[in-house]
């Protein structure tokens, strides 16, 4: 990805990439399905530790969302304050 970012500096590469990249990213969520179905192969682990895993996943996702949003808002406000 980082390599790609560098290569995108070249006009020639950009023209080729944009359609494919946009097409792929538009259907990005479809690409997660095969891995997601893989849950069924780990049913033993999932049923044994199901609720603990669920609690850890939900809480940490909320914490991640909130912390990012709060820091983002605070930093951008601080950035805009001196200029306005």
């Amino acid at each position, binding site marked *: *990805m*980082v*390599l*790609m*970012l560098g290569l*995108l500096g070249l006009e020639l590469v*950009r023209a080729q*990439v*944009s359609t*494919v*990249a*946009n097409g*792929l*990213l*538009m259907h*990005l*969520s*479809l*690409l*997660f*399905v*095969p*891995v*997601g*179905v*893989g*849950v*069924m*192969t*780990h049913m033993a*682990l*999932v049923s044994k*530790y199901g609720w*603990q*895993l669920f*609690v*850890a*996943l*939900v*809480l*940490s*996702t*909320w*914490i*991640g*969302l*909130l*912390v*990012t*949003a*709060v*820091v*983002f*808002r605070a*930093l*951008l406000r*601080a*950035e805009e304050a001196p200029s306005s």
Partner: protein
Amino acid sequence: MQKKRLRRENSTVTDFVQLWVYLSTTPLFGLTATLVIYASAQTIYQRLDQAPLANPVLWTVVILACVLTISDTPYPTYFSGAQFIHFLLGPAVVALAWPMWERRSELRRRAVPLLLSALAGGVAAGASAVAIAWVLDLPADLIRSLAPKSVTAPVAMGIAEQLHGIPAMAAVFSVLTGLIGAISAPYLFNVMGGLSAQGRGFALGTASHGIGAARAMQVNVDAGAYAGLALGIQVVLSAILLPLAARFI
């Protein structure tokens, strides 16, 4: 001369036979089922005004898992068909460079606040997951597989492998994290209030990667662009920092 041509024709026939054998032993069932169910789930999702709970990835996975269980199809058989979709994840990760490139001026101008919020959010999500799992007494290899959960699934698998976790579980955690974010974030942001579309997108991309970003893209172009940016930053940060952090623990 004629013998040569005959041999060439023969080889085309063998090629064809080999292709046929290949196709018939490679069940395209997995590929077809995934595409058909996803397309239906997507249509229903649009009909329901993109209600978060109707998330197409969630329902496609649930329905597919039920279909496979009922028809007694083992996962490897399914995957031999679905791998063609799975394979595209790699190029898709590379394609993430595109939204970053499109927003490069913004990325440069706001580099410090963006990097800092991505770092804060990523660390908060990973550390809290590990801490909660540790408090709840989960086994160590599961805890290690939880650490990279805010990164997109293929990268999470790679990182989990380096951390001596279970790559397959890391992928599952990553997908679930994406779903939880995509489903609950709209409500969470409404409770929080006063957050721009850019902030919403950026938080979604940081905490729940591609699935969150896909959700953000459907809601608002600006949110989607920032989500794409956040998810790219998160991939780079996690791939560098998590293995480093694990070395000290």
